[in-house]
């Protein structure tokens, strides 16, 4: 685990000292420099590529897409001449962590979504003048490069500006990191061993036990990484967004997505779901809002699935959640007002039943997320009483 390595801790310590020693106007430069150091230490081969991407995003924001194009061609040419495999991402070893698919190489998925957010919001005029070092600090900010959360540029730059050294921040940040480590080591990693029994589980009860373990593991594992990222940021006095809010206590699937990986679902809402909905409302589909919602959900969740990995199982997982959300949308809009106002609908029992049903549906959905399609089918058959 990178977060518990001595070199990572030294990186944080060095960053902390230089961040608060440097004049305020150089803070972004300090963060960018430590971000590059992080990439050089942990993924030296990818450091130039990451810097190139940041430069490309900056040039696009300055209206110099032509330079970006020339630059990309030059990079491809140099890579070709050097015999470097430009598709080398695929050759990186897979992580054993369930979030591993989105971490390699070192959070490239997170970086890509942050840069897309930057480019789109800049084009929409929501981000004003940009200093290159601010963008570099935002994109290379290393505590969030491993497993998110996915940051937003304006909030991050403001957080850097207002960051102040304080013992409270160091203490609370440290405690948050400690909580993350304990969550990962004592809970997620132990549950992972039960989840690994999926390979040979062959009874209905066993598969449900495995999936229950996996359901808890993936949450604890991912949220533990986020705890550590948020904790290290807190030490620096930088507030980064929360990513999880007790998602398994959600009474419905829509609420689940408001509480699970919140920065990803927020990103997908702003850059896929809402634009898709808006675009479809300008077409002949505007008379069928439910159909628009359905198309937007499917597209959004295919993007979310693909973000986790470009393979059939992740796309199926995305599609499954899209279908659940569409079903919930239909249920919510079609249920008669008289029923919706009934005492049962607002009772604790209904809430509890909704939470349990949501948890079970989400747990079933983790099956294709966990393994490839043939194995998923086998596990699903066993879960529902088949052989």
């Amino acid at each position: 685990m990178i977060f518990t390595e001595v070199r990572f801790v030294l990186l944080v310590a060095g960053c902390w000292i230089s961040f608060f020693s440097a004049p305020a106007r150089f803070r972004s430069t300090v963060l960018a420099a430590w971000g590059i150091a992080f990439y050089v230490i942990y993924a030296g081969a990818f450091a130039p590529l990451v810097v190139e991407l940041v430069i490309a995003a900056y040039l696009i924001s300055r209206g110099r897409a032509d330079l970006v194009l020339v630059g990309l061609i030059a990079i491809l040419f140099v890579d070709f001449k050097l015999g470097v495999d430009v598709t080398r991402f695929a050759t990186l070893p897979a992580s054993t962590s369930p979030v591993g698919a989105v971490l390699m190489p070192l959070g490239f998925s997170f970086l890509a979504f942050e840069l897309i957010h930057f480019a789109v919001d800049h084009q929409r005029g929501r981000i004003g003048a940009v200093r290159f070092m601010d963008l570099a600090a935002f994109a290379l900010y290393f505590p969030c490069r491993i497993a998110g959360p996915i940051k937003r540029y304006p909030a991050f730059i403001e957080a850097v500006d207002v960051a102040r050294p304080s013992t409270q921040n160091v203490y609370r940040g440290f405690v948050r990191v400690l909580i993350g480590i304990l969550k990962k080591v004592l809970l997620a990693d132990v549950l992972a061993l039960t989840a690994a029994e999926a390979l040979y589980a062959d009874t209905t009860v066993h598969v449900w036990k495995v999936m229950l373990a996996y359901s808890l593991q993936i949450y604890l594992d991912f949220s533990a990484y986020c705890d550590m990222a948020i904790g290290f940021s807190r030490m620096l006095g930088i507030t980064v967004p929360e990513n999880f809010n007790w998602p398994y206590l959600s009474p419905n699937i829509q609420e689940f997505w408001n509480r699970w990986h919140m920065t990803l679902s927020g990103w997908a809402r702003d850059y896929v779901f809402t634009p898709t909905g808006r675009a479809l409302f300008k077409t002949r589909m505007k008379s069928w809002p439910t159909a628009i919602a359905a198309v937007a959900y499917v597209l959004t969740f295919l993007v979310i699935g693909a973000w986790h990995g470009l393979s059939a199982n992740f796309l199926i997982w995305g599609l499954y959640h899209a279908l659940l959300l569409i079903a919930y949308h239909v249920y919510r809009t079609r249920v008669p007002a008289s029923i919706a106002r009934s005492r049962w609908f607002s009772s604790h029992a209904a809430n509890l039943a909704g939470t349990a049903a949501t948890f079970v549906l989400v747990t079933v959905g983790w099956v294709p997320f966990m393994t490839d399609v043939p194995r998923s089918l086998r596990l699903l058959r066993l879960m529902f009483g088949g052989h």
Partner: protein
Amino acid sequence: VSSLLHNRYVRRIAVAIVVLAVVDQWVPGLLARVERDRYESTQLFRFENSDLFSLGPVVQYFREHPKGTRPRVGFFGDSVVWGYFLKAQETVPAQFQRLEPSVRVFNLGINNLETGSAYLIAKSILPAIDFLYVFYNGDTPNAMLPQLIPVEASDLERFRLEPPDRFEPALERSMGFWQLYDKSYRLQAGLFGTSTRLYLYLHKADLARQLLGRPVSENPAPAEIPGVDAAMTLIGVDVSRAPTRPADERLQQLSTKYSLLWSFVELIGVHHKQAIIVELSGHSRPMPDQDRADLNALFFPNVTFLKLTVPVSLKIDTLHLSPLGSAAVATILARQSPGPGSAR
């Protein structure tokens, strides 16, 4: 200083540091006790889980304690030696321990570990092991080994292994003043015989019973398994030795053909140790009888090449021995001469 002391967060951090510093004082004593219990006591030794986690700590212990309270016998191999499907007391090393109580038997079997790994492990701990049983099964060492145990540069090159990361371990060594951090792997291996997480996983039922105040199942000491004498008659044993030492040309041929075993045998000779290299039917790469006879003519009595042909009736599957098969093999090994008694 006064304002800092009035800051409650500074006070909390200071208290945490003081607590850690106090706890740290107990770490060396605790480590010595748990390692003595695990490596020198009469309880059976095998890795709690058949993985590499505890290998590094065991190797470190042997390097720091080259002499044990009793002569040490090491069993090297894979899941056959570890005893897959078997309780700890049913394995070959455990049954051997029952037959040879005056020595300390270490079951160093780990899943999928080939003799190439056993060679590198033995090379790093040989002064601390008096007699070796090596279940021969292949020459390729595990690629993780250089990260876990000292491996010489020449061996890295020979086996085409990636050199270990030197940066992070050097940084970790610089944290040596913090014993709890520095010794955490050894403490886990000593306390649990594996990582904490695996221990929790493997013993969750027992831990739950303990929490509920119910009795916990314990592994009994290895007992004699009925029918061993009859089972032994079913096992073919071949320790044939050529009447004369092979010619130089033949030596050259054998050293090339069995280059790893050759190095292993030389290593054992350099350290004045003794070993039995065990070929198990269905497990080892078959060695022609003439080769075995010539090798025995060369290296006996320091090293004996022994072939055991075990029938399927004494196995759980095509590879792994049954409890009775293990007991029979252990008895054959214990009766083999020279045995650990000669090392004493």
